[in-house]
């Protein structure tokens, strides 16, 4: 078990956006989180990844209690995430975007870096190469020096995943990775996600596209009104009456 979430709750004023949600993620597993709009999926993710601290509950990652830590501390602990909208460093080039994710990996000391000693420069060059390779592997090779803002939407979403991957995470949180994509872009994304999982990174994924969820995820957690209403394998979830009601009832 790489991630364990216990009784996670988040309250905004009088509203319980997330109420006592518990689940776990195993290594090399793809966990899907689904639920109608407003069910609290993104809020739960934000609480886990350090955007804001949870009101109640515990988050244990890789044996370490990370509840309520800041976003940068959680990133350093090994959780990476992307965002729902295209959140990138728009005025910077694609490779610059990815390089920012690498800083956790710097080994040379600050003084060596400031004085531009050969060791530091070599390390920088290594990271540049690794970034370029990562971009190539993810299919963004030809955009390496392009401005992030000039990329088409689908590629921007892939870029934001690249950035999260650069920090060498053990767990990757994806917030609606295929929303707004056409069929071929979606297929590309699915392949990428499978490859990430095969590389040994666990994945937590929020998604609305049911085909994608059913095909990709090993297990699924269903939220409604901030509470977990079901958990299990895709086949079980598909047949679950409460889940069906939650979705149909919303329409």
């Amino acid at each position: 078990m790489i991630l364990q979430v216990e009784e996670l709750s988040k309250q905004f004023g009088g509203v319980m956006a997330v109420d006592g949600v518990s689940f776990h993620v195993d290594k090399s597993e793809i966990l899907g989180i689904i639920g109608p709009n407003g069910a609290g999926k993104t809020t739960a993710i934000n609480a886990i990844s350090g955007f804001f601290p949870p009101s109640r509950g515990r988050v244990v990652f890789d044996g370490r209690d990370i509840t309520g830590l800041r976003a940068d501390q959680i990133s350093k602990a090994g959780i990476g995430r992307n965002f729902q909208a295209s959140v990138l460093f728009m005025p910077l080039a694609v490779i610059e975007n990815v390089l920012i994710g690498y800083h956790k990996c710097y080994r040379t000391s600050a003084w060596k870096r400031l004085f531009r000693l050969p060791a530091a420069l070599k390390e920088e060059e290594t990271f540049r190469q690794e970034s370029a390779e990562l971009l190539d592997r993810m299919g963004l090779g030809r955009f390496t020096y392009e401005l992030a803002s000039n990329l088409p939407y689908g590629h921007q979403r892939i870029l934001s995943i690249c950035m999260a991957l650069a920090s060498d995470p053990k767990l990757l949180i994806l917030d609606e990775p295929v929303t707004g994509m056409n069929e071929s872009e979606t297929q590309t994304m699915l392949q990428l996600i499978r490859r990430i999982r095969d590389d040994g990174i666990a994945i937590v994924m929020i998604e609305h596209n049911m085909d994608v969820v059913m095909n990709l995820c090993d297990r699924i957690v269903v939220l409604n009104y901030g509470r977990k209403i079901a958990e299990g394998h895709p086949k079980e979830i598909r047949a679950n009456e409460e889940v069906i009601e939650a979705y149909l009832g919303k329409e």
Partner: protein
Amino acid sequence: MKRYGSLIGAIVTMGIASLIPLFVRSPFYLDLLITIVVNAILAMTFLMMLRTGLVSLGVAAFWGVGAYASVVLVTKLHLSFWLSLPASALITALVALILSYPLIRSPGFTFAILTAVIGMLFTIAVGNTSYLGGYSGIADIPHPDPIRIPFLPPIAFVSPTQDFYLALFLLVVVVLICTAFYSAWTGKAWTAIGVNFRLAESLGVDVFRYKVIAFVLASGIDGLVGSFCAHYQSFVVPDSYGMFATIYIQVYAVLGGIGHPVLGPVIGSALMTFFPELMRTTRQVAPILTGLLLVLLIMFLPKGLLSLFDWRTAVVERLTKLRKATVSSLLLKNGARKR
């Protein structure tokens, strides 16, 4: 070769600059050049903080802290200027560090207002302290004591020429510090924070820490320059470190171009300092023309003077891409494989 291009350019410029006193003897013009250097450095510190999203409206106050600290160290505690110079920088940095805990935790707008208040507070506080000379300030501050290098005659600070070289030396030091930080990881972190601090944080950047580094470093440099100014001018007056000084500093930064943290301030400072001199026709009309220049520049070149060069490089880039695209499509037609 490309990597060392700007280094060579900088060395050449410094070489030329150090020859200036051979041709320019008039203390008035040397003073002008020293003013340009000082203002450029202050504007550089403003940009350093701005890069992380911090708009400091109190830059001049830290400049003043360095100046007054140095005056106290030299005149009241009888330290040598050469000790007081780095000491003032450290003292100013320490003050900034202490203030950084409340200041930097605040959102951007609050930070700006609080630094503005600090700026005003400095003038009032010093003005009301008789130990520091009150509003009339302190005069007769000694020049830097002579530099004694073995086997060479001592270098005494008798004319603006020595002050000019010292200013140039400080400029070199500051530029080296700035480029070191900007090109290292710290600079990348600063840029990331300035563009999107939430994204930067989610990627593992400790936003608070890097903002504090920018703020303290910038303020330390302000203090360094303050110490130099106090002993160069031989007097300090609290009013010169007030809100209007900060506004001018910010104008030098903006005129040059905020995307160019080192070159921009030099250009902006040079322009604003030389222009009134060029317009020396009537002492009276000069400020009006300067004001007009400011308004026109900001209206037509809102990204600063150096944006003219950016425009040119953008055009050149586009033409190069066009050329490459044409060539590669020609190669494809001839059966060559695409990479």
